């Protein structure tokens, strides 16, 4: 399946969720929860907005997607594969010796992965630098940076937020996957980050918050807005559900970075298949 603008997003994202669960189950490690919360946003972005050529990942005219929450490689690899960057069969090599699909994002592995990440908090700065370089060259392309809400704990995020507004960098779009859970616990217990929208506004960004990150129409509307912002950077805060799509994973801090058991895997695949109807 190579996705296009006419792709059925419901069918695509259920397929992507099956890839995510299977990759982590097979690898016996990896991050399902944050991949499931982000995948709907990423899917709308890649199918409806991002300028990119899967057969030419280094195309100079591309927009850049920066995966700042670099532990959510299952979502990224699954989507890149379904877009046609590499064969879907290669997803079975996730986290395996000798493979390209590293546990956390590594620039260029495979083509389409635009940044190295895993240490949180660097993606917005990296994207800011890319957008400044584009502006220097008169390029109108967008740089879209996906961050987690736990990631907002990192001070570097706010250094970048301040600098992006100072330099009046439009075309830089921050997407926050606000699923409310970080590694150890709910974010309200670990480190309160709210009100995120007011913080970004105070730093000089144009912000849209409260967007349902699992409603394709709402995502599309928010991204269309973000793509239209001029004169300042834009931030969309999506309300999402960690582990979205599998009942016992949803909003469960235990599925941040742990693989499912055999029974859990079977149930997860049944739930994800059921949603699609007969497989």
């Amino acid at each position, binding site marked *: 399946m190579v996705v296009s603008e006419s792709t059925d997003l419901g069918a695509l994202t259920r397929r992507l969720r099956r890839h995510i669960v299977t990759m982590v189950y097979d690898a016996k490690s990896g991050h399902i929860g944050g991949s499931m919360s982000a995948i709907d946003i990423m899917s709308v972005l890649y199918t409806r907005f991002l300028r990119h050529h899967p057969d030419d990942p280094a195309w100079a005219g591309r927009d850049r997607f920066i995966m700042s929450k670099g532990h959510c490689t299952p979502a990224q690899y699954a989507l890149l594969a379904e877009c046609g960057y590499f064969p879907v069969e290669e997803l079975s090599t996730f986290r395996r010796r000798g493979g390209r699909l590293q546990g956390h994002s*590594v*620039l*260029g592995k495979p083509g389409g992965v*635009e*940044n*190295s*990440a*895993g*240490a949180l*908090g*660097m993606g917005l*700065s*990296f*994207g*800011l*630098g*890319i*957008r*400044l*370089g*584009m502006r*220097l*060259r008169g390029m109108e392309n967008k740089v879209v940076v996906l961050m987690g809400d736990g990631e907002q704990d990192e*001070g*570097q995020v706010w*250094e*970048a937020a*301040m*600098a992006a507004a*100072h*330099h009046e960098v439009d075309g830089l779009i921050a997407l926050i996957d606000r699923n409310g859970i970080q590694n150890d616990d709910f974010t309200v217990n670990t480190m309160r980050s709210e009100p995120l929208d007011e913080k970004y506004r105070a730093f000089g960004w144009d912000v849209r918050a409260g967007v349902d990150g699992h409603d394709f129409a709402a995502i599309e509307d928010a991204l269309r807005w973000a793509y239209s912002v001029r004169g300042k950077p834009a931030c969309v805060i999506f309300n999402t559900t960690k582990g979205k799509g599998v009942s016992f994973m949803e909003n469960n801090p235990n599925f941040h970075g742990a693989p499912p058991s055999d029974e859990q895997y079977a149930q997860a695949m049944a739930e994800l298949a059921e949603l699609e109807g007969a497989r």
Partner: protein
Amino acid sequence: MTTIPAPAATREALGPTLIRLQRAGADIVVVDADLGKSTSARSFKDAFPERFFTFGVAEQNMFSAAAGLATLGSTVFATTFAVFAEHAFDQLRMSIAQPLMNVKVVASHGGVSTGEDGASAQSIEDFALFSSLVNFSVVVPSDIVEAEAVIEAAVANSGPWYIRTGRPKLPVIYTEGPRFRLGKADMLRDGRDLTIVACGLLVERSLRAAEALAKDGIEARVLNMATLRPLDVEALEAAARETGAIVVAEEHLVYSGLGAMCAQALATRHPVPMEFVGVQDRYGESGTWDEVLDIMGLNAAGVTAAAHRVIARKR
């Protein structure tokens, strides 16, 4: 009578050299963390304002943004003081080193010769930190002539570099022009009794030590090891075989800098008695730059004493 060039600080080379190279057709972008006057980078802003970005006092953001800028094809010079470059080690590692970005970190006010500002401003760990980053070239010019050549070489070669420059005005060694080549030691004086390996401002001080030793009948080879990584192990091995004793002198912690790297290289090739001149297990303190160097023993007398110790062990 020939004209002796005026002493100059290695940090003074940055801005003017970058302006010259940009005018000559290079694609240079400079990023800064509010120290552009002191690093001399700010003069580049005056010449090419659209190619200069300040990030305020925020080094982490600056280094990751420098990496992003480099993906568009520019050679990006990221500038601050050496101690503040240390502030952003993980950004240097994950944004620049691992993905092999063409970012040149030029850090001025290196070493204890920052002087009056005291311990917080004196970088004595930067060789260790940057040499521990895979893919980084680490270079420490010894005078302004060499510093200009190092910056030219950094533009001519892709990949991440760390260049440490200094605050004090130093005598010019390369009065007849630079001889810098990345990864190559430069023999400034030959001798058969021992080799002094030095970088930065210890090079000129080692030359003075060699003159003092010559008066005692000891002939010292002096190698300017401007490149710490990749280290010129061939020159080191030749020095060990031909002179049988080595002193390493640097403005850095003695157990984790050039001396340690030289000792490791020689351990597997040709071990000989070695002595180390550097900052001992301590932080710096305030004083004029040369007073602080004297407190630390980072002077010609310190190198000379180390030479006598190593010669004694040789016998």
